[in-house]
């Protein structure tokens, strides 16, 4: 197995062994058994040969005994005992016998190849007939004797006993042992060689087997399935097979990626995932208007679940007939290439305005013109439409608001020119109105510019010491006349000494103008508007309280939205841009404070401007006496 792989993606293959020795050891065992059998066969053959030789020797000894016996009898008859003993000795030596003897029936040894064993020195005259006993001693292992009894005329029986020389055991033959040893060594060598060759041949096959098992267990990594190329032609062939398969897979993946990415499209599902994070709905349908893809926003905007949409006709997900007709025209009829429908859905306050844009997808060159399907883009326009309406209302309202003071200015200028030359009272009144209207105009333009600054994020504070006493004096002079005109009691309920705070004087003045102006605007004749100031440890609270028409709880936060105007019909009759409170709160927040409201319909409202208290170093003593408790 190739151990050079650095990455560890081989969990499956790691579980199977490679290059083991089980088959080789089996081969070695077989070889050893074969060698043992060969040695046993050799020993058996040698033993058989030895036994055959012993039989042949015994036969030869028997023949010798039969031919020797008459000669012995003749020599005994002639009393030639010495010759007999020489004959026996020579025969034993010549025939390589172990023993040769002539025995009397009583066991006396008349002649013997070993003269020391002769027991009968003198030849008796007669002796009894019969066979002599065995020459060999009892219990001693010896070669079988060949006995031949011969009768000696007038004396008795003689027994010629011949004992063949013992056959040496197989192991006593050095040649045999050497031969067997050589056979054993050669056999062992051949066995080991066989084992080695078997291992060489079997190793790649086993590795291939293991790789196949791993592949069937789910391993797909080519590196894990490849085996060591050093294991011969089989290994090389296997590796070539794996490499070919890997190339094929890579080519298929490339082709898939090419199909998905062509041209300029990301692969690996990136496009789908990208569409999933869009807040606009996207639905892709095929030529039969079956949904092939829908992003999450599409499911939300259509009020469906994605899983229920995909694979089903788009019409099942569309509740608007106009949209369904558009999709049919684009996808099926081919009468339109692209179309858009704006539809309202939902009920009551929850109504939404949704735009559906359906575009036909360009088909492949070899496909029909309608086979490409289409893409449906779904956009939620509700908030934009509401904002558009608010801006339209603002433009209408601002136009009216701007025109009113301009008209007044023009009329009073004309009056002054025509009749005021000789009437100083009329002239003074006209100038006063012109001045008031000009300042009103200035504030409106300033408000609009401030809105633009806030929208652009460029509103900045020009901080300086703000003398609240002077500021309230100015407000008092600005609004007392207007309050009197509307028969409203305008009161400044302020402490005798007012602090000096840090801030942008013009912008704080603008915020207070808006709060007091609104209070006077939405309080009917005979009402009261009171401005009070409370100094706390870290904050200053300026309250503008009226007993006018009030604001419902559902609108108390919304009145701070730009261009928003309360839905009360009494408000609709009074001109306004819907910018004042939004600007006032923005200014308060820029100073680190806020504006809050407490209100009850028909009982009036209290707006509280919260500003940070002056630093301890800025003593309140800097302020002069306040215009306290002035009333219209």
């Amino acid at each position: 197995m190739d151990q050079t792989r650095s990455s560890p993606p081989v969990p499956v293959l790691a579980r199977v062994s490679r290059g083991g020795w089980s088959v080789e050891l089996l081969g070695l065992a077989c070889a050893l058994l074969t060698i043992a059998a060969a040695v046993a066969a050799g020993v058996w053959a040698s033993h058989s040969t030895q036994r055959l030789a012993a039989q042949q020797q015994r036969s030869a000894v028997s023949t010798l005994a039969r031919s020797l016996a008459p000669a012995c009898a003749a020599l005994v008859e002639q009393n030639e005992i010495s010759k007999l003993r020489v004959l026996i000795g020579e025969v034993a030596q010549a025939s390589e016998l172990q023993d040769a003897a002539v025995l009397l029936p009583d066991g006396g040894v008349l002649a013997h190849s070993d003269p020391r064993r002769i027991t009968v020195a003198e030849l008796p005259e007669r002796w009894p007939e019969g066979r002599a006993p065995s020459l060999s001693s009892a219990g001693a292992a010896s070669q079988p004797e060949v006995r031949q009894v011969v009768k000696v005329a007038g004396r008795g029986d003689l027994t010629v006993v011949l004992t063949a020389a013992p056959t040496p055991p197989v192991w006593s033959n050095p040649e045999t042992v050497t031969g067997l040893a050589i056979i054993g060594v050669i056999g062992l060598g051949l066995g080991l060689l066989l084992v080695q060759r078997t291992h060489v041949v079997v190793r790649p096959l086993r590795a291939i087997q293991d790789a196949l098992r791993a592949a069937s267990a789910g391993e797909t990594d080519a590196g894990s399935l490849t085996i060591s190329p050093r294991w011969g032609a089989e290994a090389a062939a296997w590796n070539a097979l794996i490499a070919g398969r890997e190339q094929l897979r890579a080519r298929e993946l490339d082709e898939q990626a090419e199909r998905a990415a062509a041209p300029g499209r990301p692969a690996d599902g990136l496009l789908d995932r990208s569409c999933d994070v869009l807040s606009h709905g996207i639905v892709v349908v095929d030529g039969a208007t079956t949904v092939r893809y829908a992003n999450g926003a599409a499911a939300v905007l259509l009020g469906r679940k994605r899983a229920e949409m995909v694979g089903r006709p788009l019409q099942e997900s569309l509740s608007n007939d106009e949209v369904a007709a558009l999709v049919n025209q684009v996808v099926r009829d081919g009468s339109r290439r692209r179309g858009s429908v704006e539809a309202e859905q939902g009920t009551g306050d929850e109504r939404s305005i949704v735009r559906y844009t359906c575009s036909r997808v360009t088909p492949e060159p070899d496909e029909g013109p309608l086979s490409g399907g289409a893409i449906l883009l779904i956009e939620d326009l509700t908030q934009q439409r509401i904002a558009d309406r608010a801006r339209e209302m603002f433009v209408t309202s601002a136009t009216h608001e701007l025109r009113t003071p301009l008209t007044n200015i023009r009329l009073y200028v004309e009056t002054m020119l025509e009749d005021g030359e000789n009437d100083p009272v009329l002239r003074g009144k006209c100038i006063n109105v012109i001045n008031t209207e000009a300042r009103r105009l200035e504030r409106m333009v300033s408000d609009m510019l401030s809105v633009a600054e806030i929208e652009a994020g460029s509103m900045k504070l020009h901080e300086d010491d703000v003398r609240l006493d002077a500021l309230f004096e100015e407000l008092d002079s600005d609004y007392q006349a207007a309050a009197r005109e509307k028969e409203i009691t305008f009161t400044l309920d302020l402490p005798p000494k007012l602090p000096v705070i840090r801030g942008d004087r013009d912008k704080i003045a603008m915020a207070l103008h808006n709060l007091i102006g609104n209070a006077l605007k939405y309080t009917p004749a005979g009402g009261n508007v009171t401005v009070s100031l409370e100094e706390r440890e870290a904050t200053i609270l300026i309250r503008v309280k009226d007993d006018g028409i009030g604001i419902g709880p559902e609108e108390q936060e919304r009145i701070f939205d730009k261009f928003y105007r309360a839905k009360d019909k009494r408000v609709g009759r009074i001109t306004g841009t819907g910018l004042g409170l939004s600007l006032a709160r923005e200014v308060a927040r820029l100073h680190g404070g806020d504006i809050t409201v407490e209100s009850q319909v028909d009982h009036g409202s209290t707006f509280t401007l919260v500003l940070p208290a002056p630093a301890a170093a800025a003593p309140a003593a800097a302020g002069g006496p306040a215009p306290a408790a002035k009333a219209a």
Partner: protein
Amino acid sequence: MEIREQRHGAVTVVKPIGPLIQGDAQVFLQRFNAAVARSLGRVVLDATAMPFVDSHGLEALVDAAEQLDEGGQGLRLCGASETLREVLELTELASLFEYYQDVQDATRSFL
């Protein structure tokens, strides 16, 4: 815990009054998801009156954010207290939400 809902144009502002804890979390999630379904995902969570959350509340917030995320929207959170932001950062959930200073800013983000 009281849960207020208010329309700002086409946007529904959901404002829990009180801490988002234990049993309240599930009630909040149901109300929030219902608002998401009704207003097609145009929902803002006003957390100015929500001083803190416990693990149930966090889970509800995460579920709500994931619900919106599936529709390609983020959970717009405005007026989050320092404590709430700290909890979201410590639990590494801060990235699930979009933060706005106030309801107006959050509402404007739908334009």
